[in-house]
């Protein structure tokens, strides 16, 4: 048997729930709340949508040309400095 939680308490747990970081009593309490509260189900679904929306827009850039070479040169410089 788990204690009932309010909508406000449930909302504070949404992200941990989406990140699979909830377990034990807090997880049971939230899932029980979600069974009875359609509003919180909609809110949780929206949080999931915002996460996916942002994740898809993080952006990417091609590896700059010659970066690996510049890194290797940097390593050599460090070696030379250490030896010198």
């Amino acid at each position, binding site marked *: 048997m788990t204690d009932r939680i309010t909508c406000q308490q449930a909302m504070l747990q949404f992200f941990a729930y989406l990140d699979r970081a909830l377990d034990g009593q807090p997880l049971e309490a939230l899932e029980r709340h979600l069974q009875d509260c359609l509003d919180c189900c909609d809110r949780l679904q929206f949080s999931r949508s915002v*996460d996916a929306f942002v994740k898809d827009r*993080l952006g990417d850039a091609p590896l700059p040309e010659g970066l690996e*070479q510049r890194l290797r040169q940097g390593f050599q410089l460090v070696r030379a400095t250490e030896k010198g």
Partner: protein
Amino acid sequence: MPKRPRPTSRRTARPTVRVDARFEAATLPHLKPLFRLAYRLTGNPAAAEDLVQETYLKALKSFRTLRDRDRVRPWLFQILSRLAIDRHRAAAREVPLEDSHEPDRFSLYDRIADEDPLPYSDRLHDEFLAQFQDEEVRRALLALPEAYRVPLVLLYTEDLSYRELARMVGCPVGTIMSRLHRGRKLLERALWECARKRGLVKVWTP
């Protein structure tokens, strides 16, 4: 391809060269994901390259202290993440992080429902999000303080557990949990403000 420096003495130079070769073989395969993370944290390729270079030089200097060679990738990600946070501290742009619980309670869902910016929509919340350009979302993310942005971008990019994130960023699991919550709430607020500036919603109450 530059020539490897010629060892001057078997006794002193060879072990260093061997360690350096091991370092390059162990770390350079992770260059692409590291650069991607750096780009997502900085928002521009030149700053990302600087961050990656700094990460590799720091890693080179402490490679001998890495005990578990199977954990090279998270170790490199950890160095880069902490450098990103330290740069922010060095630039003295720190804002109070835990001063109020008010941002934690902001609900973009409720604001959209209350304001109803698309009165004829039957998918109000989804259509609200669809109005943003990719660049606006990236700008909102980049405007977050690093203490929130770094764990959030790491989570989105690498899908790590809170324990792994805590280890990477160097703070307790509870702190990671609250920063991921607040970071997302600040992002929701930034999106709402962006919508207000673009005239997608009529009123904005802070």
